[in-house]
């Protein structure tokens, strides 16, 4: 039991920290938000250290798996949450919703994600997913006096409940046909082939549940509305860490317990990936709200990441992990810029407000241009390498059509990313934004920009880390 606890130390530490901060916040009142947020970031950083110190092992009767794959994803998740908290304070203060529960909820959500990527059992998977989602439902509705925010929270909650229902239904079908919920057991039962169709149908439902969480088409419908309605820091959080967690979970579930049925499930993953890429590329063009645009962009990017899953080999897993790391940076950075779109009258979300930004705020425009080029996958920016590794894996796995569709949709997608660059650099300036006063947003945006810009100089740590992680998942 002690060994089990030691294994889950990062999660336990975070949970205890969250509860301590909660109690502290309740006693200290609303003024403590800044302190609680800082402490939360410190706790997340400490959790990274703890994650790095774990040895690969399985605990809690097989429910909790610690391996390099999980640790890689956990570090990304922790970093994503930390950056999201760091960027949120200014916005929350401006909007009058600076409440200490916010960082605490994000921490609890993070614990849920860490449990997801460490899941070794369908039960643990479901519990992690639910913990993660529940906290985000609340966060989406955090600005409770705004109709849009509450609507976003409610929509996400109702549809999330439906997807959870599907996931549970699928899990029960799998349990009914395979006789076990543990991943190791399932892998053993299903390795021989000749899978009962019940397991396959169950898998479809599970896929639907997870695809909902990472907003892959056709389970993506909530994404644009929720991204638009939720407060911007929440959106920036939703678009980063939970996505990493959901895709990592996707890989763990499909490659470990159901690894023996690759040929069967690849068919639906390919369809999901293609639908996501196409939808992400085309629907984004018609948007005028930048958060909605980022929602479609994230749908498209999930599609690219799923290409790596469809490849179903070590190279693919590595590609997806690299992709996620890069995506995290680009996305956090872009939202940092969006958080800087502030005028005296309030925050702006219209893409047209970016017009002529290069003249009024050249630094901000340059940062945004870097992120847009990177999201579009223009070399030598980081985004190119993310796509490159994934497409390579697909080609090596013989999925030529998928890779070609990926490239074509990237080209279509480049249209709307570059349109923003054009707007910033060539159009007549709109009313300028107020100077950014929040240090958190500034630091995070600059850091993300530098990472995106200079990833190609020294990609070795991330590539090597992803390689080790991929080897841990698919020996």
């Amino acid at each position: 039991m002690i060994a089990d606890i030691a294994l889950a130390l990062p999660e336990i530490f975070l949970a205890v920290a969250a509860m301590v901060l909660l109690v502290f916040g309740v006693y200290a009142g609303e003024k403590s938000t800044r302190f609680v947020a800082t402490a939360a970031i410190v706790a997340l950083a400490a959790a990274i250290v703890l994650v790095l110190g774990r040895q690969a092992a399985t605990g809690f009767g097989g429910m909790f798996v610690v391996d390099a794959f999980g640790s890689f994803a956990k570090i990304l998740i922790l970093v994503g949450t930390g950056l999201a908290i760091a960027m949120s304070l200014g916005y929350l203060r401006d909007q009058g919703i600076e409440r200490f529960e916010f960082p605490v909820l994000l921490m609890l959500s993070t614990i849920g994600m860490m449990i997801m990527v460490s899941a070794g059992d369908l039960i643990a998977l479901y519990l992690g997913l639910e913990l993660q989602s529940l906290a985000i439902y609340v966060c989406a509705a955090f600005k409770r006096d705004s109709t849009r925010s509450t609507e976003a929270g409610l929509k996400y909650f109702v549809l999330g409940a439906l997807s959870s229902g599907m996931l549970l239904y699928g899990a029960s079908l799998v349990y009914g046909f395979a006789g076990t919920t543990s991943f190791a057991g399932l892998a053993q039962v299903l390795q021989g082939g000749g899978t009962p169709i019940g397991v396959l149908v169950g898998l479809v439902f599970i896929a639907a549940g997870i695809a909902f969480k990472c907003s892959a088409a056709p389970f993506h419908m909530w994404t644009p509305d929720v991204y638009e309605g939720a407060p911007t820091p929440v959106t920036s959080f939703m678009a980063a860490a939970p996505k990493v967690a959901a895709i990592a979970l996707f890989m763990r579930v499909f490659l470990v317990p159901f690894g023996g049925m690759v040929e069967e499930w690849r068919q639906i993953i390919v369809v999901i990936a293609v639908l996501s890429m196409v939808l992400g590329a085309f629907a984004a063009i018609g948007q005028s709200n930048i958060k909605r645009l980022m929602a479609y962009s994230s749908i498209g990017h999930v599609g690219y990441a799923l290409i790596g899953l469809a490849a179903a080999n070590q190279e693919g897993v590595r590609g997806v992990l690299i992709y996620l790391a890069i995506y995290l940076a680009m996305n956090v950075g872009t939202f940092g810029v969006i958080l800087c779109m502030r005028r005296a009258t309030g925050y702006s979300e219209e893409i047209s407000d970016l017009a002529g930004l290069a003249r009024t705020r050249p630094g901000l425009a340059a940062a945004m241009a870097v992120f847009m080029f990177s999201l579009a996958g223009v070399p030598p920016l980081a985004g190119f390498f993310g796509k490159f590794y994934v497409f390579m894996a697909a080609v090596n796995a013989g999925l030529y059509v998928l890779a070609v569709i990926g490239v074509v949709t990237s080209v279509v997608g480049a249209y709307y990313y570059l349109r923003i660059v054009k707007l910033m650099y060539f159009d007549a300036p709109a009313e300028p934004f107020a100077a950014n006063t929040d240090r958190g947003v500034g630091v995070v945006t600059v850091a993300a920009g530098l990472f995106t810009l200079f990833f190609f100089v020294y990609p070795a740590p991330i590539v090597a880390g992803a390689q080790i992680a991929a080897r841990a998942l698919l020996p």
Partner: protein
Amino acid sequence: MIVQALAFYLFAAVTVAAGFMVIAARNPVHSVLFLILAFFNAAGLFVLLGAEFLAMILVIVYVGAVAVLFLFVVMMLDINFAELREGFLNYLPIGLVIGGILLVELFLVLGAWAIAPEAAKFASTPTPPVEQIANTHAIGQVLYTKYMFAFQVSGLILLVAMIGAIVLTLRVREGVRKQRISVQVSRTREEAVALRKVEPRQGV
């Protein structure tokens, strides 16, 4: 044996029918009542399985607490359900088609039901025979040991739910007068009573 079979089909049929009525009833209060009926029948199914603890928990927690709470909420909120249902019929055909297809497919799945032969050895927590151990006891034995992880995570989920409910609903109103007992008790005579000499025909 036949009695058990009959009881099973009775409970099962009523559960499904009640479940259908939950979404079909016009009056939301009726919906909740049908939900309670479905819970009762599900409890009956648990009893048939010999899981009397779960059956009782279902009745006490779901019927006694959750559903009753639902009932209060539904009765207190003045929602015009007729308006919400507008357009419902438009989508009925397509809903029926999709539902029907899924149903047929699930029947086909069930028709081919067979637990994979390797699965037997994974039934790692075999249900102990009722003669040896009461199932309340059996659940207790594994809940805090084998499933401690799941149990604790469930606790965290409930914590999040609680925080969420408070965050989204608790409002600090200005000017609310609250009883502060310590202040009341610590009042002294000096600050509570003031002697004034009142001149006649002048008032305070």
